[in-house]
């Protein structure tokens, strides 16, 4: 690359300023590291955040390692096949001190350290762990985004107040990640890419103001961007080693040499372009497993190993405001001829939706006691059944039915549940219509979710007039013709109902109370007009 391509002026930022001038009033460009503010920085509880968004990146530097093993004492290395050759891709600190390095061949590594434990890379488990971390991050912010293979992003502007400031939030997050079995490095910046770059390469990277961003990014190495090796090599040969140097390159020339997409990425890095992120939605089934380091045959121990899984399950359910009515467990056995099944299943069916780990544990304990295990257990798996929406509510002082506990949210919930399965027309309430025509004297209506405690309507029964027959409890949807009405025994009647001339559906009928040969009481009518046909309209029930 010709020497004269090297640019030392701050053209990058000049161009940036021009771009910005269109929308914003001119600002002091952060050409150099900003002058320390005259006013001392406010305390942590009220951080001086002027950015519209604040992104926190979790970078999991030891993901490869943590996916395959608990970080323990024996020196361990993760190997991966690279162009047909197995090479070390990650190692524990203990192994590193013994001279094991990334890229070392397997035989070379074993020659250096004979008792080195080698594990193949487990991509699926890595992904799982990442999702686990992202799921845990949902406790801190609803806007979580994945950055595979080893990053998770959170938008935390709205969460700072709740968690008591950035430092407290970062600390809590790191603790949660550790609980999930992942070491996390944290970077905070007004845009996702800068936060990621910071988390990847800096020890503690926390920028809460747009104005400081470029200056803080400048010393970071190019590696932070995860660009292809070819690009990095070319930039390296140009003498560009840090982000600061990169940002000083002229825009047009950079775009020509490295492509527009890289330019867009740089614009996103300094916050000139916003970066749309896909929000992480956790999957709607819980699945967890634990592998104890030894074989268990004791039910109490199994339950103890299941406890952390159940705690995870509870968190999972709480985040979604859901509950379960079914929980599946599998207890895996070592493959042996004497044991026909690889695992023993256990299905927990609950009568009411449940979410509490404590209650699951109690139920599981009771079920486990009865479970016969053909062999010791080497692995426990837990899978949730269908998730049911479950509104957590404060429980009333009185239990339902005790001292007349008020009708809570069960009523609408019941309607929703029934309608979800049966369709909304299948669930309805009744109401009266002041009408003489029997089929129009009632109507379907929306079920009342707030019920009057005193039913005044029931009191207002109209006194029966002469010739008024009592009404049947059942009404047929459509009156049925009665071909053999002569076999009916007429008990009471007639009651003449003649009405409805105003809407064209007028009726002229003589109603009778009749009994059929089985002893069922029927409500029948005879049309007044020819052909004087008989119809069945109701059953007294």
């Amino acid at each position, binding site marked *: 690359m010709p020497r004269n391509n090297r640019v030392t002026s701050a053209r990058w930022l000049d161009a940036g300023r021009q771009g910005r001038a269109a929308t914003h009033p001119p600002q002091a460009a952060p050409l150099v590291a900003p002058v320390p503010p005259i006013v001392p920085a406010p305390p942590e509880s009220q951080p001086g955040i002027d950015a519209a968004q604040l992104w926190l990146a979790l970078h999991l530097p030891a993901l490869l390692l943590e996916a395959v093993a608990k970080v323990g004492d024996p020196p361990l290395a993760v190997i991966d096949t690279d162009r047909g050759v197995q090479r070390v891709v990650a190692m524990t600190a203990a192994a590193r001190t013994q001279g094991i390095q990334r890229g070392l061949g397997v035989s070379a590594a074993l020659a250096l350290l004979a008792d080195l434990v080698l594990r193949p890379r487990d991509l699926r488990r890595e992904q799982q762990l990442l999702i686990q971390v992202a799921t845990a991050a949902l406790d801190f912010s609803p806007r979580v985004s994945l950055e595979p293979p080893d990053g998770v992003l959170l938008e935390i502007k709205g969460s700072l107040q709740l968690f008591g400031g950035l430092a407290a939030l970062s600390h809590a997050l790191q603790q949660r990640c550790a609980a999930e079995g992942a070491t996390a490095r944290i970077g905070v910046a007004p845009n996702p890419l800068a936060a990621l770059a910071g988390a990847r390469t800096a020890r503690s990277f926390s920028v809460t103001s747009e104005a400081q961003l470029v200056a803080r990014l400048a010393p970071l190495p190019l590696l932070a961007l995860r660009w292809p090796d070819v690009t990095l090599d070319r930039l390296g040969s140009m003498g560009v080693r840090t982000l600061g140097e990169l940002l000083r390159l002229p825009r047009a020339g950079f775009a020509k040499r490295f492509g527009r997409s890289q330019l867009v990425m740089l614009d996103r890095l300094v916050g000139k372009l916003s970066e749309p992120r896909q929000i992480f939605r956790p999957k709607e089934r819980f699945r967890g497993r634990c592998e104890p380091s030894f074989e268990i045959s004791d039910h109490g121990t199994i339950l103890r190993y299941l406890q952390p899984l159940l705690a995870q399950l509870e968190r999972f359910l709480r985040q979604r405001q859901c509950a379960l009515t079914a929980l599946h467990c599998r207890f895996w056995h070592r493959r042996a001829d004497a044991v026909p099944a690889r695992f023993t299943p256990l299905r927990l069916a609950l009568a009411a939706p449940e979410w509490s780990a404590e209650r699951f544990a109690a139920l599981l304990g009771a079920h486990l006691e009865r479970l016969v295990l053909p062999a010791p257990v080497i692995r426990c798996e837990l899978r949730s059944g269908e998730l049911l929406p479950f509104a957590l509510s404060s429980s009333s002082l009185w239990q339902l039915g005790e001292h007349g506990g008020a009708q809570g949210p069960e009523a609408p919930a*019941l309607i929703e549940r029934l309608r979800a*399965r049966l369709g909304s027309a299948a*669930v309805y309430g009744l109401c009266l219509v002041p009408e003489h025509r029997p089929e129009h004297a009632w109507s379907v209506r929306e079920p009342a979710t707030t019920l*009057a405690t005193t*039913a005044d309507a*029931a009191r207002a029964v109209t006194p029966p007039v002469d010739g008024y027959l009592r009404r049947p*409890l*059942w009404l047929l949807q459509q009156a049925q013709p009665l071909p053999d009405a002569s076999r009916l025994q007429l008990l009471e009647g007639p009651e003449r109902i003649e009405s409805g001339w105003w809407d064209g559906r007028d009726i002229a009928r003589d109603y009778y109370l009749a009994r059929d040969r089985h*002893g069922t009481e029927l409500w029948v009518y005879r049309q007044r007009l020819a052909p004087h046909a008989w119809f069945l309209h109701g059953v007294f029930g």
Partner: protein
Amino acid sequence: MPASSDTALHELLQHPAIWRGRSTARGATLSTGFPRLDEALPGGGWPRTGCIELLTPRWGVGELRLLMPTLAQLSQLVPARWLAWIAPPFEPYAPALLEQGVAIERQLVVRASKPLWAMEQALGSGACAAALAWLPSERSRGLARRLRRLQLAAERGQGLGFLFCEHASARESSPAALRLWVEPIEQGVRLRLLKSRGGLRSPFELRWTDATQ
């Protein structure tokens, strides 16, 4: 026997741990509105929670009329809860219900192809004081197992379940707390308690006019 020892014995027999033939069901009960029926039932009325099976030759032989005083009573209770009608064979007729003193606005009709499922939901939710379900005979297969679930749901939701089945299903065993065989007679029904914890065994007749208002 002197009177004092008689009362002492009587007090002793009131102890809940003592089991004596007819006097077993000492849970809370709800009057049926028919003195004859109250007398025949253990504890003097319907149980407050649980499932009751009514076996009829066909729909509409008086099985619903039999429940009207009960439903009227339940629909006046505070707090207000629904009465669910699950898969009724015809439309419940609001004017007639009103005549019987049943509060119309507390009725909930559910048209379900799986009545037992809907009934379990209704009873278990706690939002229904009672649920009535109609079960054609082809649906009553394997009822025993489902009924146990219903029983539990009814206890959880503090509700009363009435299940209407056809006579044919009397052959199958049932975990219901109470099973009644219903037959029509003129102006009333003939009842027989197929299963009850200490109720009357022999059939007896009820007249509609007997109902206490």
